[in-house]
C-alpha cells in the first residue's frame, strides 16, 4: 500500500511550504497512517482521494488539517509518564506534609510550558493526589509569548488530546468545544501564566517546592545551562525537587543537585547546606 509518488510529493511539498518540516519518502507509511483518518473524516475512501481533493479544491481548512496531522510535535500529556508517577507517589506526599505544617501552599513552577500540556498535567496530578486542605500555586512560563497565549487559552485539538491523556481524565477535566477540547475550571484554578526567559535574570516568582524544566537545557551550551540552573536553584527550597527531561542531567553542569534514586526519571533534589553522604540522598 504505497502512495503514488506524485501524491506523496504533493503532500511533502505542501508540508514543507507551510511548516518547514521535511518529509522524506521513507515517511510514506507515516503520511498514510496520519492522513487516512483525515480522509475518512471527510467521507473520502483513501489518501489518494484526499490528495485529489486538495489539488482541486482550494480549502485552507483542509490544508491546515493535513499539515497539522503531519506536524504534530512531541508535546504530549504526562510526557514520559514516570516524572508524573514520581510526583504523585513520592514527591507530593512529602511536599504536601511540609506545606501543611507551615500553613502555606505547595508551589510548583512549570518553567518551559510550551502549549500547556505540562502544567495542566501537573495540575491533574495535584488535583488527584493532594490531601484535602492543602492548597497549591502553579506557575507556568515559556519564552514564547505565542506559546504562553496558547497554553493559557487551554484549547487543544483532537490530535493533541489523543497524546497520552487517559480517557478517564479527559472526561473529568475537559469540555468539548466544537472540534476542540477546552481545559475546565478545576485545572485553571490556582494556575498562572507568564512569559519568562530562563537565560536572563528571573522576575520575582517566590520560592518553589518543585520545578519542572524539561527538554530545555538540551538547547543550551554548558555555560547557559549552568546559569539557568543557578537561577532556578535560588528559587528552590532546600531539598526542593527539580524535574529535567529524560535525556537531561545536572552532571557536568552543577554539583548543587543530587539525582533522586528513581532510575526511571531525571529527578533531582537541591542539596541542603550540608551535603548528604553519597547514597543517602534521593527519594526518601
Amino acid at each position, binding site marked *: *500500500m504505497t502512495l503514488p509518488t506524485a501524491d506523496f510529493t504533493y503532500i511533502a511539498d505542501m508540508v514543507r511550504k507551510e511548516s518547514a518540516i521535511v518529509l522524506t519518502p521513507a515517511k510514506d*507509511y*507515516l503520511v*498514510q*497512517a*496520519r492522513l*487516512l*483518518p*483525515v480522509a*475518512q*473524516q471527510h467521507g473520502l*475512501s*483513501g489518501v489518494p482521494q484526499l490528495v485529489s481533493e486538495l489539488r482541486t479544491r482550494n480549502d485552507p481548512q483542509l490544508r491546515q488539517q493535513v499539515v497539522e*496531522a503531519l506536524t*504534530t510535535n512531541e508535546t*504530549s500529556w*504526562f510526557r*514520559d*509518564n*514516570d516524572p508524573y508517577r514520581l510526583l504523585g507517589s513520592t514527591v507530593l506526599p512529602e511536599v504536601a506534609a511540609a506545606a501543611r505544617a507551615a500553613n502555606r501552599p505547595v508551589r510548583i513552577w512549570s518553567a518551559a510550558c510550551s502549549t500547556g500540556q505540562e502544567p495542566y498535567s501537573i495540575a491533574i496530578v495535584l488535583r488527584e493526589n493532594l490531601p484535602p486542605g492543602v492548597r497549591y500555586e502553579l506557575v507556568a512560563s515559556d519564552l514564547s509569548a505565542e506559546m504562553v497565549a496558547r497554553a493559557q487559552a487551554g484549547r487543544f485539538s*483532537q*490530535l493533541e*488530546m*489523543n*497524546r*497520552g491523556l*487517559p*480517557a*478517564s481524565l*479527559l*472526561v473529568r477535566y475537559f*469540555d*468539548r468545544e466544537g472540534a476542540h477540547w477546552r481545559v475546565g475550571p478545576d485545572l485553571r484554578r490556582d494556575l498562572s501564566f507568564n512569559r519568562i526567559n530562563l537565560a536572563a535574570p528571573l522576575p520575582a516568582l517566590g520560592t518553589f517546592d518543585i520545578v519542572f524544566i524539561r527538554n530545555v537545557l538540551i538547547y543550551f551550551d554548558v555555560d547557559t545551562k549552568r546559569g539557568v540552573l543557578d537561577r532556578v536553584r535560588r528559587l528552590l527550597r532546600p531539598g526542593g525537587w527539580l524535574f529535567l527531561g*529524560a535525556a537531561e542531567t545536572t552532571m557536568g553542569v552543577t554539583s548543587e543537585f543530587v539525582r533522586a534514586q528513581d532510575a526511571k526519571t531525571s529527578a533531582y533534589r537541591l542539596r541542603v547546606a550540608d551535603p548528604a553522604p553519597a547514597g543517602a540522598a534521593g527519594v526518601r
Partner: protein
Amino acid sequence: MLAMVIDDSRAMRLILRRIASGLGFDVQEAGNGKEAMEYLDSTDQVPELALVDWNMPEMNGLEFVTAVRADAKFRNMTLMMVTTESEHSQIVRALAAGAHEYVIKPFTPEAITEKLALLGLVQDGANV
C-alpha cells in the same frame, strides 16, 4: 501477545495492524463485533488487547465491549475504542461499559503507543 483489530474499514484495520505488529503483537482482524465474538468463541486464546471501532454493522463496538465485559473469561482483555465518535457523553458511555481507553480518530501512531504504555501493554518510549 495477541491483539484484535475490529473495524469495518479494511484500510483502517491495516493501519492498526501495522502499529500493533510494530509493538510486538500478533494481530487478528475482524470486520465487526459479531465477527470478533465468533473468533473469540472459536479459540481458547484470549487476546491481551482489542482495538475497537464504534460504528460497525451487525454488532457495534459498544455492544462488543459490553458483551466482552459480561464474560469473566475475558477479564484480562484490555479494550481500547478507536473511533470517530468524539462526544464527551460517548466517551463516558464507553468507559462505563468497560472500555479501558479511548482514542478518537484522526490519531497519530504515537497516540496508540502512548495509550498502550499507559495501560502497561508496551514500554514507555516504544516506537512504531
